[in-house]
């Protein structure tokens, strides 16, 4: 019972704190650029403002366009329910839920792409095409990385995987875990449309991927999309943090503190990457993704040859 109540508390914290992560990234970028930067809570203000606006719908759009943001947010909220938070278990964990996790991210992407295509704008169609191309390469890296972890811990559920990873795992299987963590970091950058794959600040049609697909959404719809993106970043961040910092002290507060500290450092790390790197040329992005996939496969091969 206590296990469940702390899990629910963790989930509530995730839902509330998720928009902080983009704020941390933006503050880090502002620090590198020597600017003051937007407030840490900027995304909360944006969401508040957007939720109080009305939405404008183009006459060429259909119900698909209106469904997109809501279904996307629903998918990522469901994903939050199956990813364990900070040393605990997830609320709805079951064997094989890692496939569902990839599927939910896929569903979110799919409905965003459909909504973008529904506008009939060639510009949004281009963004959709890019998004689908890159995510088709990112998904194998993600799933194979999770498969390596599943084999390593001998469990098929995310709860079992992250419960099975301990600090000792880093002693016995450091190369494998480091490879998976590196692959997951690359997938994290791709899936959340960060530099070096996509530039979240750009509004040039040559460079946009994710941003271009949501141009026609406004008001509460756009708030859903922004919040869904922040939550997705939070969920993927939790996966990455629990690979790198597998804390199971048994004390709820310590585990939560480790998770939050990990997410904070992840935000700083992403901000640092964005400040020190240029966006890759579009044709080089698949190569980066294939590299991420290769890292996952190498990790999987290394895990497979381990004596059970």
């Amino acid at each position, binding site marked *: 019972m206590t296990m469940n109540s702390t899990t629910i508390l963790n989930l509530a914290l995730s839902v509330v704190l998720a928009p902080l992560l983009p704020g941390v990234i933006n503050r880090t970028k502002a620090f590198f650029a020597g600017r003051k930067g937007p407030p840490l809570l900027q995304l909360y203000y944006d969401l508040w403002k957007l939720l109080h606006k009305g939405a404008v719908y183009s006459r060429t759009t259909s119900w698909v366009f209106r469904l997109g943001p809501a279904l996307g947010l629903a998918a990522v909220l469901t994903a939050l329910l199956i990813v364990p938070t900070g040393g605990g278990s997830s609320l709805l964990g079951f064997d094989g839920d890692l496939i569902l996790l990839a599927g939910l991210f896929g569903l979110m992407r799919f409905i965003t792409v459909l909504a973008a295509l529904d506008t009939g704008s060639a510009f949004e169609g281009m963004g959709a095409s890019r998004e689908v191309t890159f995510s088709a390469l990112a998904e194998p890296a993600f799933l194979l990385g999770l498969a390596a972890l599943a084999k390593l811990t001998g469990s098929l559920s995310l709860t079992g995987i992250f419960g099975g990873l301990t600090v000792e795992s880093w*002693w*016995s299987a*450091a*190369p494998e875990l480091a*490879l998976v963590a590196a692959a997951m970091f690359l997938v994290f950058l791709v899936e959340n449309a960060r530099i070096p794959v996509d530039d979240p600040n750009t509004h040039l049609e040559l460079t946009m991927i994710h941003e271009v697909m949501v141009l026609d959404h406004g008001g509460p719809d756009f708030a859903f999309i922004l919040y869904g993106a922040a939550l997705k970043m939070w969920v993927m961040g939790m996966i990455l943090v629990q690979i790198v910092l597998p804390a199971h002290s048994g004390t709820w507060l310590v585990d939560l503190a480790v998770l939050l500290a990990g997410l904070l450092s992840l935000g700083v790390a992403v901000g640092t990457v964005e400040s020190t790197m240029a966006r890759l040329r579009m044709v080089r992005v*698949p*190569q980066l993704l*294939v*590299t991420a996939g*290769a*890292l996952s*496969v*190498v990790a999987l*091969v*290394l895990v*497979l*040859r381990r004596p059970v």
Partner: protein
Amino acid sequence: MNEPIDGLMVLLVLLNLWLLASSRLIACTRIVAAEGIALGLLPLLLSWDQGISGRLWFIAAASVIIRGVIFPQLLLKALRQANVQREVEPFVGYSLSIVIGVLTLAISFWLISRLPLPETPHLALLLPVALSTILIGLFVIISRKIAINQVLGYLVMENGIYVLGLALVKEIPALVELGVLLDAFVGVFVMTIATYHISREFEHLDADQLDSLKG
């Protein structure tokens, strides 16, 4: 002492993949140099438990200096003299190269698991990684245009054979080891001179065009 050896082997795998993915000749040369330095440390790690003799220190030092410093210097000098363009110009794209590199690794693991070999714990990673390094070296030789890459591929293959030898033979006599290093040194030396002459004669280093040579 298995974890550092495993780490070194994974590092070798990653360097191999990086070599397949990088588009600049100078970067490739540096990667092969890094491989050489990493492999120079391997005999030290392998016999860490038994204690390291002065002979072993000497071999390791010679290996690091020749593979990590002299080879890259020779190659960079050849690059400057030949005045070639800095791109690798592969026949096979970079992404596909990485995929093939990973495939060779998987095939090597499968092959080694089927070979009847003496069971020793530290062999677990050494043999398959050695085999995949040899295969990747071969792949670099056949898949790149500029002649310097053939030297790099040869060096990667040599690295792989070196690891294979270390894994199978308990202790390689210093004389044999130095003989191999000398051979490789002469090989690289001759090849860099050859690339220089090729570039002087034909004003390019395109190995593909050697096909059209007539006797």
